[in-house]
């Protein structure tokens, strides 16, 4: 496959940045998208040019590091995959592919396609945990009966890898799908009930402070989420937050 790539290049956080065109030839349809970028970077390095910076780590859809906005969609045109799981067979010979960083005020660009997603870490630190005394008195998790349906929903919510595709896809740069998944994975389990009120209030407050937008229920986040996190979680977080606000 021969392709034209239109890639966002930005030297650092202060640089204005621009789209730069690259031609790349002889790409195998069996390559992953990141392998295609590896080939491009090898060529750039050989020519003495600066390689394109992009985030990646596990390359098997687990870590949530890769974060590219490809042809107008987070993680590209495929569904339920991260960028590292996207294959070049999803494109055609002669295609022009736009590659941009995830855009949001809360995700400032560090360099090229790499963005700072530590806003998610700060939201998580605000309440995405349970406080358990682990000094030898920990109760066996299996001793607490949990309804299968709730266990499944909590597990589904916990599969969120925090990649930020929800924020990138949302026209408002809202982080509600991410935050709601983190709230739900605890709200559905008895272990999460003790700190439920503070958790949702603190996490939503931190989310707002980070500058994410408001959810207008377009559903784009759910469609583009590589883990299929459901909008049901946002409705649950809304209920949790409103209940907690009345209590607080």
């Amino acid at each position: 496959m021969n392709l034209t790539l239109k890639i966002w290049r930005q030297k650092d956080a202060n640089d204005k940045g621009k789209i730069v065109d690259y031609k790349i030839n002889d790409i195998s349809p069996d390559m992953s998208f990141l392998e295609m970028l590896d080939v491009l970077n090898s060529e750039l390095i050989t020519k003495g040019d600066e390689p394109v910076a992009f985030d990646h780590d596990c390359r098997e859809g687990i870590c949530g590091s890769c974060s590219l906005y490809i042809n107008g969609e987070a993680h590209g045109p495929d569904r339920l995959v991260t960028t590292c799981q996207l294959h070049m067979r999803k494109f055609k010979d002669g295609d022009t592919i736009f590659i941009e960083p995830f855009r949001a005020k809360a995700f400032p660009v560090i360099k090229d396609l790499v963005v700072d997603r530590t806003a998610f870490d700060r939201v998580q630190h605000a309440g995405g945990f349970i406080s358990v005394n682990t000094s030898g008195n920990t109760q066996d998790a299996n001793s607490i009966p949990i309804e299968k349906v709730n266990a499944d929903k909590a597990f589904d919510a916990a599969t969120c890898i925090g990649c930020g595709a929800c924020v990138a896809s949302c026209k408002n740069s809202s982080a509600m799908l991410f935050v709601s998944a983190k709230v739900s994975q605890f709200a559905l389990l008895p272990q999460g009930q003790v700190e439920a009120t503070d958790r949702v209030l603190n996490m939503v407050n931190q989310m707002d402070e980070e500058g994410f937008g408001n959810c207008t229920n377009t559903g784009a986040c759910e469609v583009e989420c590589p883990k299929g996190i459901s909008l049901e979680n946002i409705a649950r977080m809304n209920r949790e937050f409103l209940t907690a606000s009345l209590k607080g």
Partner: protein
Amino acid sequence: MSGILNSSIGRKFAMALSALFLMFFLLQHFAINILSVFSPDAFNEASHFMGTFWAVQYLLQPILILGVLFHFVMGFVLEIKNNKARQISYAKNNGGANSSWMSRNMIWSGLAILAFIVLHFIDFWIPELNVKYIDGDMSGLLPNGGYRYYEELTHKFVNPLRVGAYVLAFIFLALHLLHGFNSAFQSVGANNKYTNGLKGFSKIYAIGVPLGFIFIALFHHFNH
């Protein structure tokens, strides 16, 4: 509790409550207006009741005005805040791949509805206030003795330009409701086993009610 309206979820909850109230009002408005097609007398009686009953005039009407104002002002506030959350746009964005046109353009359909409400107020609401509260005529009667409401309604739909504007506005209303109806329920936290059924009902409401209003406007235009 005090900070609820300062939070993103609190704002969307308030937006949803005002939307649910306005959708209920719209249904009630439609129920009265459709009477004009079947029975001018019934329409006159219902209009006179709504126009003179104290609870409607002095309690529900101010709530309605506040609801409309709140919905529009909060809509603009949210739009401004949301635009600030992404300061650099994508060079290529394929919004159609993951969301409906209606959901991405609520501000534009909302602005079209706002323009229509201004026209509607000039057409009906302000003259109504003038007759009742400036002229002091609460009788609802024409000089010949019959009720004036049906006459006023049919008179307004003689002008084809006005009918065209109303039809266009109701198309935008349908587009707004096609996203807004379900969105309001999601915002108040209602996403459960009934959601799929609700989505079906929302389509019937979002298309049926505006279509009904269009039918009423066209009916009176072509029959008078």
